[in-house]
């Protein structure tokens, strides 16, 4: 790889880290200005002023905000996300299993959704403006337009209740056999796939159609290539940058946007963990989960940027 490209990539990564730091400040500030007193929340209404003061001292709540921020940030950087107030458990330990569950679900949804979306996009371009194109676009749009809880309950109704093919509740536990685990996540993964499919498919179609106007596509047609070969070999490679972008945005959604789907299927992932602790006003947990979601989002976008840079032959092979 050439030097300018490495420089561009290094720039992107540095910018990403800077952005993540800025977001950590925002998350910290945001949770600080929320109404309510943590000590009061823990001890309840009947607590005596002395015990409240003691607890505040113990939690470091009397320190200035920036001291608490750096204390928190230092902890995060060394892998210490703090202790959950509601349960008194170490956050890092409880997140580990749940993050893994969420990634597992997102991974299998992506494995199905991304290739399917791109192939459907290619087929839509091949038969553009014909009935195949309209059918694909219509179905994909419909599946996105339904809210995910609706799609989720629909899946539960048919596949779990009526035909009893898959469990309605996606319980997973440590040491669960792979096959059972896959069966457990089948329904939430399908729901997620249906939600993200259309966006990626339509962007793939639009990006390739944009390239189909180019003179080099005509050159390929005049070489005698079949319609599909023209799209795959000559149009698709030049449409990769926008496609990578939309794929990464949707992958990010699969990880950070699964809250509703996880709740519907009672799946022990990050989303459910977040929702549980928001209702309990457990600020350290909300901070930790927010930061992890931000990191995932930023990393995937950096990957998209790098993908777009690497896909550009002008940057990969300078004059």
């Amino acid at each position: 790889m050439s030097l300018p490209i490495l420089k561009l990539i290094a720039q992107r990564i540095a910018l990403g880290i800077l952005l993540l730091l800025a977001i950590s400040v925002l998350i910290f500030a945001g949770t600080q200005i929320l109404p309510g007193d943590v000590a009061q929340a823990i001890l309840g209404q009947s607590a005596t002023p002395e015990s409240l003061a003691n607890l505040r001292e113990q939690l470091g709540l009397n320190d200035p905000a920036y001291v608490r921020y750096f204390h928190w940030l230092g902890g995060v950087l060394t892998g210490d996300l703090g202790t959950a107030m509601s349960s008194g458990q170490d956050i890092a330990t409880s997140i580990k299993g749940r993050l893994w569950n969420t990634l597992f679900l997102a991974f299998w949804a992506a494995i199905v959704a991304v290739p399917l979306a791109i192939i459907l996009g290619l087929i839509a371009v091949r038969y553009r403006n014909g009935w195949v194109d309209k059918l694909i676009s219509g179905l994909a749009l419909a599946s996105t337009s339904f809210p995910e809880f609706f799609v989720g309950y629909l899946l539960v109704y048919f596949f779990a209740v009526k035909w009893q093919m898959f469990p309605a509740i996606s319980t997973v536990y440590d040491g669960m056999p792979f096959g059972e685990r896959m069966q457990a996540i089948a329904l939430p993964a399908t729901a997620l796939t249906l939600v993200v499919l259309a966006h990626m498919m339509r962007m793939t179609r639009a990006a390739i159609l944009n390239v189909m106007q180019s003179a080099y596509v005509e050159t390929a047609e005049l070489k005698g290539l079949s319609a599909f070969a023209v799209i795959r070999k000559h149009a698709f490679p030049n449409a990769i940058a926008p496609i990578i972008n939309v794929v990464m945005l949707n992958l990010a959604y699969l990880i950070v946007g699964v809250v509703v789907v996880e709740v519907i299927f009672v799946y022990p992932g990050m989303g459910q963990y977040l929702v549980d602790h928001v209702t309990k006003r457990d600020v350290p947990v909300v901070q930790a989960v927010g930061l992890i979601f931000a990191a995932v989002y930023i990393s995937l976008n950096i990957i998209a940027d790098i993908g777009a840079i690497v896909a550009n032959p002008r940057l990969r092979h300078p004059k």
Partner: protein
Amino acid sequence: MADSNAKPGQPKAGVLLDIRNLRIEATVYPPGEAPKNIVLVHDVSLTLEKGKVLGLIGESGAGKSTIGLSSMGYGRGGVRITGGEVILNGRDILKGGKEGFRKLRGREVCYVAQSAAAAFNPAHRLMDQVVEATLLHGTATRAEAERRAVALFKKLSLPNPETIGERFPHQVSGGQLQRVMTAMALCSEPDLIVFDEPTTALDVTTQIDVLAAIKDAIRDTHVAALYITHDLAVVAQVSDEIMVLRHGRLVEWGGTRQIIKEPRQQYTNALVSVHEIEHQEQNPGVTPFLSVKNVTAAYGGGHVKVLKNVSVDIYPGQTLAVVGESGSGKSTLARAITGLLPPEQGTVTFDGRPLANRLADRPKEDLRQLQMIYQMADVAMNPRQTVGTIIGRPLEFYFGMRGRERDKRVAELLDEIEMGKGFVDRYPAELSGGQKQRVCIARSLAAKPKLIICDEVTSALDPLVANGILKLLLNLQQHEKVAYLFITHDLATVKSIADSIAVMYRGEVVRYGSKSKVLTPPFDAYTDLLLSSVPEMEIGWLEKAIKGRRMASAGN
């Protein structure tokens, strides 16, 4: 008609391509009207023998490319072949269906596009694209096809023929790409190549090399060719026969010598004699009203010097032509004068006082005195404004004219550009290319400027239309006493309009003076190259010009 025209129904021995009564239609969707069918090609017939070159010539909309592509069964953007036969190697390809087209494209017939820079896929290496058709049709193994490609690169005198195939399109210059595309067409050893304006987008000094390379390659490989161009002088160098087309109909078809020496049709005659405008050079006045003194300008914060110590003078009511190939700094000079690119050093004086360097620092009056007309008239106008609004805008802006007074002046200006009052309510999309350029001229005249900068204003137009624009500009100059800074790469245009000429090369003025002085020998090496590269309507000119050159062109 040439006597090689075969009788219907009896394919003549040696005939490769026999197009009979070809009819091509398209559906157009005019705004606000019902879609309608238009006929692009009206019953055109032609025959081409093996190994011969037929030139198709005509202005845009004549149907040249459409006919050329019909030999591959291809219609651009919804164009349909609705009648006639296209007999290639003894069979009617129109009956072969999609599968049949795919088998002949890239194998029996190959295509060389106008802009190779756009016709190569930016994502793949050149070699992969050059051998793609050969491998697809299975006529050779990969190793064999690559060997053939390298041999063709050598024949087309490309630099580093062994390794140029490893490059990507953006790493190779436009003239080289055009030759690589020719190699790509020849690689699958087709019977026929359709050359669609292969040198039109190139600089004149590059065009001559590419033209010579194409001509040699055609001769050595015995491939037949349809050579499509609007430039009769170019086609005269490579063709055995020439067919003149207009509005999708055949005008005249004959041997190259007959067409250029003894044209039988009036339209052919007009094409042959197109550039002959008489323009008597005016003597420079005593004092120039605009002087560019030792101007140096650069892009990228001073990194890329594009103008080096340039000095020129413009006299009232006269024309200074600036010529040179692309990248020589012609348009940058215009940008420096108008203040769009503030010079790093040097001054521009106007009426004896220096003009502010930056456009933003110039008073409205200075802006009014310098107007511009561009190459692409259609993108220089707001498509949602009528002609009346477009021309009326400078009247309001500079002179505060309103209502009836403005409308009266707009009508006068429309008269001056030889367009009637009926055009006031038209939108740019409803005008032809020449009419659009006329509206742009009227818009610049509306400001009553002392100088109009014309940046390649005729380059995108057909020769006859361009001629009309040049005549109009000369007339307007006489009436309005306006001066022109005329930027062009076309030396024929320069001869017909200029009073003085500045020849630019790599950011410097290499030759400057009155027209007669600049165009009289002895020449410097670059001016000689430039002048000798302009195609002349004479058989055998190409060989003579290549032999007589003193300097190799830079950008090939």
